[in-house]
C-alpha cells in the first residue's frame, strides 16, 4: 500500500485495433435492440403500474397484517382486555409504550392509562406479538404524519381496565 499507481493500458497491434474498431460498429446493433424494448413499452399502456394515491384512497386497502400504529382492541362500550401486566412495555425496543397501572375499588391492579408514543415507534410489532391477552393490535392506518408534536403522544384506552 504505497504510492497510488495509475494503470496505463498496454499498446495493441494495428490488426487488433481494427478488429476492435469494426467489432464496436457491428455491436452497435445492440442499441437498436435496446430501443425495441423501450418503444414496445412506450406503446403498451397496460404495463403502467402507477397508483394515483390520494385519488384512490377510497379503494386503497392495506393487507390485514399491515403494521400501522398500535391501537387497543375495544368493544362497543369501550372496554378492553388489558390487565396492565406490562409485558408489551418490556417487549418494546424503543420505550414507546408506558403502561400506567392503577388500583380499582377492589384494590386490584388495573390499567390506568396506556401511553403510546408514535414518534419513537418503529412499527416492529413486538408488543402485539408479546401480549398474552390479545389486548392490542396494529391497525391499517398508514398516514401517520402529524403537523404537531403533541399528536404523537396518545392514550390508547378510553376506559380504565377491568382486570
Amino acid at each position: 500500500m504505497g504510492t497510488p499507481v495509475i494503470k496505463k493500458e498496454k499498446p495493441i497491434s494495428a490488426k487488433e485495433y481494427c478488429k476492435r474498431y469494426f467489432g464496436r460498429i457491428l455491436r452497435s446493433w445492440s442499441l437498436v435492440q435496446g430501443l425495441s424494448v423501450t418503444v414496445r413499452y412506450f406503446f403498451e399502456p397496460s404495463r403502467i403500474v402507477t397508483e394515483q394515491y390520494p385519488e384512490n384512497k377510497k379503494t386503497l386497502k392495506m393487507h390485514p397484517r399491515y403494521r400501522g400504529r398500535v391501537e387497543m382492541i375495544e368493544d362497543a362500550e369501550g372496554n378492553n382486555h388489558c390487565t396492565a401486566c406490562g409485558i408489551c412495555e418490556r417487549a418494546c425496543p424503543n420505550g414507546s409504550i408506558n403502561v400506567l397501572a392503577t388500583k380499582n375499588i377492589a384494590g386490584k391492579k388495573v390499567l390506568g392509562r396506556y401511553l403510546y408514543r408514535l414518534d419513537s415507534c418503529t412499527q416492529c410489532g413486538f408488543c402485539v406479538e408479546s401480549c398474552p391477552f390479545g389486548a392490542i393490535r396494529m391497525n391499517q392506518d398508514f398516514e401517520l404524519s402529524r403537523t404537531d408534536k403533541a399528536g404523537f403522544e396518545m392514550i390508547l384506552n378510553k376506559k380504565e381496565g377491568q382486570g
Partner: protein
Amino acid sequence: MNSSIFIPSVTHPIGDFIRSNVPIPELAFLINAILCIIGICVVAFGAALVLVYVERKVCAHVQCRLGPMRLGFHGCIQTVADTLKLLFKEVYAPDGADKFLFYLAPMVLLTAPFLCLCMIPFDHNLQVANISVGIPLIIAVNGFGVLGILLGGWSSNNKYSLLGGLRSGAQMVSYEISLSLILLFIVMMAGSASLMDITTSQSGTILDWWIFKAPGIGIVAFIMFLISSTAEMNRAPFDIAEAEQELTGGYHTEYNGTAFAMFYLAEYINLVTTSSLATTCFLGGFLPPAIGVAAVDHALAMVPGLIWFFAKVGLMIWIYMMLRWTFVRPRVDQLMALEWKFLLPVNLLLLAAGAVFLALGWVLP
C-alpha cells in the same frame, strides 16, 4: 457588405400588407421585425412549455409510469405551474462566484437557438430571414451556445460546475465539426446553402427527401446527424456536461430560479431548432409526404405546410426523446473517441461519397 440580407425577403401576406400600406419603408421594416420577433418568441416559448410536458409524459410511458396527472387534464398545465414556481424563486449566486458572468451565461446560451429559429422556413412564405448563407450562419450561431455553458461552469466557483463546463466545451467544439460536415453534405447535394432552397429541392414524393434521395448515404447521413446533434444539444445519452450521477448537475449545479429556468428553456428550444433543422434538411421541411398517387397527393397538399412541418418536427423530437430514455451515458473519453475516431472519418467519407454520387448522377430524380 450587402445590406440586403437584413431586409426580410420573404413574401408573407401580412408582411406585404404592411409594406404596401405603411408609407415609410423603415417603419414597415420595423413593424415586420417586431412581428417576427413576437412570432419566434411564441413558437420558442410555447414549444418549450409543451415539450417539457411531452418529455415528462414520454419518459413516464417508457418507464411504465403515468407522469404528471394532477394539474389540468392529465397534468397538461403542470409545466406552467413549474415555470411560475421557478420564476418566483429567490435568485442568488454562490459565494465567490463571478456575479456578472454568472448571470450572463444563461442569456448567452439562450440567444443561439433563437437566432437559428429565425432561419427555419416553417411554410412556403413563413420564414423570418431567407439568407443565402443560411447553413453557415446556423453553424456559426450554434457555436455561440457553448460559450454560455463554459461561462456558467466557470463562473459558479464550484468544482463540479467547472468539470461540467470543461467537458461540455470539449464535447460541443468537437461535435460541431461533424454536424457541420453533415450540413455541408446537404448543402452540396441541394446545391444551395439557403434553407428555403434546400426545402424546395426536395419537392416531389417522399423519395425526393434527402434521406432517401441519395440512395443509402442519405440514411447514413441522417443517423450521423442524429448522433452528432444529440451530442451538440447536450442531451442524454450524451449529457456528460450535466451528468447528474457524476457531477450533480454539471454546469448548472449552482443555478436556481430564473437563471435555471433559462438553461432549461435553452435546452428545449435547442431541441426544437435541431429537430427543425433535421426536418428541413432530411425530411422535406414543410412539404407534404406525397407518395406519387395523384388523388392522395392532392389531399395531402390541402393540409397547410405549417402542420406538416410541425408534424415532422414532432416525430424528430419523439425520436430524440426515445434515444434519451433508452441509453446510458458514455464516458467522456469514449465520447471524444466516438467523434474523432468514428464520426469524423465517416462524415468525410460521406462527403466524398456524396460528391461521387452527384458526379455519377446516382441521385434519384
